[in-house]
């Protein structure tokens, strides 16, 4: 039984589209609303026991803007499957899969940090790479690569530091 046949059999009863990517990988697209059921079926019925990554693609300005991408590996069958789900750009959110693969917590945090996609049900969804309190999501296509006020948080911290400092200097004020 080929990988695709196994995937399609596991997803019986869940609407999905089989994609034909140029690299020949097994790739399917599903609705964002069925992500937890579909991925649980892949894990339990098709043997995809390892999550490789969770990331996103920003297709700005097209709608639906974001594509959340999952890649899974079956250690028993030594094959992989890619799963995509599209979500709109306005308040993007999708269900978490941390109850299926606890290790995806970091991937989802990174995805939230870089794209601003909220993973509903994630228990510790905060920024992973950028400082807490930063307002923007750097991997979005409408984010300028030199950043938006990249020094703002540091300058605010620096101002608090100087307000508390016993050493006041006019030249630095």
């Amino acid at each position, binding site marked *: 039984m080929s990988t695709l046949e196994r995937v399609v059999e596991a997803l019986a009863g869940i609407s999905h589209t089989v994609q034909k990517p140029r690299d020949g990988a097994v790739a399917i697209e599903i609705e964002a609303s069925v992500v937890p059921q579909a991925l649980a079926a892949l894990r339990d019925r098709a043997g995809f026991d390892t999550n490789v990554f969770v990331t996103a693609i920003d297709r700005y300005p097209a709608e639906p803007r974001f594509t959340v991408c999952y890649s899974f590996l079956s250690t028993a069958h030594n094959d992989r499957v890619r799963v995509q789900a599209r979500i709109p750009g306005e308040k993007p959110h999708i269900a978490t899969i941390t109850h299926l693969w606890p290790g995806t917590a970091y991937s989802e945090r990174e995805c939230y940090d870089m794209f601003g996609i909220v993973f509903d049900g994630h228990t510790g969804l905060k920024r992973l790479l950028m*400082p807490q309190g930063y307002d923007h999501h750097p991997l979005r296509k409408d984010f300028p690569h030199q950043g938006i006020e990249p*020094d703002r948080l540091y300058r605010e911290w620096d101002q608090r530091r100087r307000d508390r*400092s*016993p050493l006041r*200097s006019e030249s630095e004020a």
Partner: protein
Amino acid sequence: MGSLKPADGHASETGFFVTQVDWVVNWGRKNSLWPMPLGLSCCGIELMAMIGPKFDIARFGAEAARFSPRQCDLMVVAGTLTWKMAEAARLIYDQMPDPKWVIAMGVCSSSGGMYDSYSVVQGVDMILPVDLYVPGCPPRPDAVIDAILKLQKKIEREKPFQLLLDGDVVGEYDSGTKRFLRAPNHGVPTTGSHEVLPPTKPGRGRS
């Protein structure tokens, strides 16, 4: 200690005694530059090579790398400084007692280098007064040793006791470009002149 002849011609202006004390103080400072190794990326590896036996900065009195900023004189910012790390770097600098010097090692810490990016500080002179910039990606240990020798020359020219009253511990800061233009001209440290601040984040130690 060698000759006690003043290195410059200021003896007539300031008096023989002050010039000689300056010379002795500078001699002590320049030959015991204890580095604070702020190794942030690949430059940190070259920094380790420089401290190690092959290049051996012990020859210049700078081998005692201390991992407490309170025992250091020379901060070597070795690598890419991100804005998230900038607070920690500034805090480490503030905790170092005066007099203190800064070497920006490598193009990343000198100017941001190839990382013209939202996350990288475009030159550590945006947050610290820098004495010397060392180009290279990463610079060879020889280049950094050359920087230390140049810094020793710079320390020789300082006049700590003449700046006793109006010593400058901050350097020159341009609030327009938000950059430090000049490193401090060190006077003699007085009590409380270096900034040692309690943590600013809530929940960690004193607030």
